[in-house]
């Protein structure tokens, strides 16, 4: 159970924590810089008050994950920038609302006296209103701090490294230690930042210089210490531009393959950065724009979702047409298939299969009215699901969306009767499920393919380092690697090491021809 060892997780902590801290502190700093002056302005210009607070309120009502995901198409990029922008917007409401409330709640007779004594607007603000509103103002900043630290864990799916990497990958690979590490680290960070902000406030209101300095210095040490792993890595890399960015989708197989690619590139002395747990279309767009250099996708996914094709002309034709299309439309290079297929399939419990005589999806139609189908976040909104439903005229009693991890326990416990399973998933056998045949070929083939950005494909080193993957991992090998993580509790990087040693063995047995 090496994957569950705390030491494995702690090794990742400096990197994740420093990114998380940078994201949080930058977002809060920007939030404060924008919202304090805006809040002061709004207390002076009453007509702006309602629209400003309403707008900030709208940002707040958008769920954190959705706000982050929205930034990706809006900004056309992934990673730090969209995550930062979303978090800044998230910090607006508490800071703004407390600034406005704090200032407006200052005793009006005190403000009148201040003006009557001959303070100008600025003096009234700085000498009277801000000092008196300080506790409320700081409370807003503290609320924002806690929210932003928490929400920043959701930056992982848009390609920004954060403590969320522990949580997302831990959830997918059923690694409780990883999830806990992420949660505890985020909680501690929130508490410490909150305390330090509070300390700055106490120091300011008591006008205690010593206390203030202590708070500010510890805040700086925390930020500096947190960011140092990043600074060290940045100065270590001689050519930071050449860092290859690897993408992966949010499921076990993709996490493993991401590590395999990183391992292969690392062996060739190339620096890498893994953006794990990203959504299919986000990843695809990012590759087209060169924000990601390489990832593994599946022919059927691109065929149905990116190319919007409905007919299924067969495995070979799809691969060929897709390769040409990717190059033409996005400059994306597909060196070739990996050799395994991870198809979507509908799976039922063996006892159901035997009792109701279910062998193909065709048979499912008879019982669909009594069956509940469960699937991952994507499937029901993908064209393949529509194609499948139309081809077999399926009408289930209910359809439930859930995390892929939970699908298997849901079907084995009888909460759902059919799930959309991935064919390389070791859990199909482990949970004694039967994958139904697709005689009408409503679903396209899902051959795993290596995809490279235009830029990455121009680098001979990158292409060479990744070439062993092409034709290098077959169905049973991939299933074995997935099983190691999903069922045996092995760490993702150990499973990746297993695949890499497998690649080395096959590599010595064959030579590879590159199709351009």
């Amino acid at each position: 159970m090496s994957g569950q060892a705390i030491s494995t997780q702690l090794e990742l902590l400096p990197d994740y924590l420093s990114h998380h801290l940078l994201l949080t502190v930058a977002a809060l700093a920007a939030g404060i810089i924008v919202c304090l002056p805006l809040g002061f302005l709004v207390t002076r210009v009453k007509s702006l008050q309602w629209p400003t607070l309403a707008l900030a309120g709208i940002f707040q009502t958008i769920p954190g994950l959705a706000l982050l995901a929205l930034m990706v198409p809006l900004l056309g990029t992934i990673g730090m920038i969209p995550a930062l922008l979303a978090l800044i917007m998230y910090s607006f409401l508490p800071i703004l609302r407390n600034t406005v409330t704090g200032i407006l709640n200052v005793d009006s007779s005190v403000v009148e006296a201040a003006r009557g004594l001959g303070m100008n607007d600025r003096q009234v603000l700085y000498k009277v209103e801000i000092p008196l509103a300080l506790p409320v103002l700081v409370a807003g900043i503290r609320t924002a701090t806690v929210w932003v630290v928490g929400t920043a864990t959701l930056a992982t799916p848009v390609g920004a490294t954060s403590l969320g990497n522990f949580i997302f990958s831990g959830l997918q690979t059923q690694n409780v230690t990883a999830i806990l590490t992420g949660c505890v680290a985020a909680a501690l960070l929130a508490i410490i930042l909150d305390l330090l902000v509070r300390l700055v406030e106490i120091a300011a209101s008591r006008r205690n210089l010593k206390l203030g300095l202590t708070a500010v210095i510890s805040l700086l040490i925390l930020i500096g210490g947190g960011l140092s792993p990043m600074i060290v890595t940045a100065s270590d890399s001689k050519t930071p531009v050449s860092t290859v960015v690897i993408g992966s989708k949010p499921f076990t197989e993709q996490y493993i393959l991401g590590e395999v690619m990183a391992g292969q590139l690392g062996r060739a002395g190339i620096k890498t950065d893994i953006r794990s747990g990203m959504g299919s279309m986000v990843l695809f767009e990012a590759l087209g724009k060169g924000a990601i250099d390489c990832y593994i996708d599946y022919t059927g996914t691109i065929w149905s979702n990116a190319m919007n094709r409905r007919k299924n002309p067969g495995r070979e034709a799809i691969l060929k047409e897709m390769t040409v299309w990717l190059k033409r439309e996005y400059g994306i290079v597909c060196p070739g298939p990996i050799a395994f297929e991870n198809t979507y399939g509908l799976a039922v419990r063996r006892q159901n299969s035997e009792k109701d005589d279910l062998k193909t999806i065709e048979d499912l139609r008879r019982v669909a009215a009594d069956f509940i189908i469960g699937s991952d976040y994507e499937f029901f909104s993908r064209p393949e699901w529509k194609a499948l439903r139309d081809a077999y005229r399926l009408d289930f009693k209910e359809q439930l969306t859930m995390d892929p991890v939970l699908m298997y326990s849901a079907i084995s416990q009888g909460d759902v009767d059919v799930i959309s399973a991935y064919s390389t998933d070791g859990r199909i056998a482990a949970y004694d499920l039967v994958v139904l045949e697709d005689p009408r070929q409503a679903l396209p083939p899902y051959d795993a393919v290596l995809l490279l950005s235009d830029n990455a494909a121009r680098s001979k080193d990158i292409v060479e380092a990744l070439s062993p993957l092409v034709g290098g991992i077959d169905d049973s090998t991939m299933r074995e690697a997935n099983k190691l993580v999903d069922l045996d509790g092995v760490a993702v990087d150990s499973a990746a090491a297993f695949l890499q040693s497998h690649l080395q063995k096959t590599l010595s047995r064959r030579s590879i021809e590159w199709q351009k």
Partner: protein
Amino acid sequence: MLALVGESGCGKTSTLKMINRLVELTSGSITVNEQNIMNLDPVRLRRSIGYVIQSIGLFPHLTVEENIATVPKLMGWASDRIARRTEELLKLVGLNAMEFKKRRPGELSGGQQQRVGLARALASGPKIMLMDEPFGALDPITRSGVITEFSKIQEELSLTVILVTHDMAEALVLADRIAVMQAGTVVALGSPFHLLSNPGNAYAEELLSMPQHQAQMLNEIMKSREES
């Protein structure tokens, strides 16, 4: 000293606030020291006029000393001059400097707070004071003490004071002239003696006779006590 009297909402406070431009004029003109206030910088104008209000408005986050030093600090006085001035003012309003200067407004009684408010308004040595019901929130005994002290201070510093008050007795005792206001206009103006003998307006007459009425009522109560 001019007292503005009249019922709530008749425009006493607005008139006062127009003088230091907390409320801007929409028509007409006001002159202070023979200068049209519209030609003066409002901030400078306010610093040259003391301003005291019923709710006092001491800065709760500052000490008594710092409250009093507000205007001198804004005007850039040297710190030793400010310190001397603060002690002088505390003495003037009858508070022990050593005892009070480091306290916060929250630790003072209402009468003490109003004395500090008065000291703060006098800090830069203004010759004109605007006072909006300055003694209104004080209990009767504290109030009569503060009023007596204030009239001494006024005489000592030869201040020009415009006082807004509800209390006719206060106006009659303190003021050199009384302006009776009704619905935004002055309906009667004159010395207490002149107005008492010749109000010239029914409303002014009624208002000015209030203290006498009260005195009469008290007398009657006392009489009925004696008889029984």
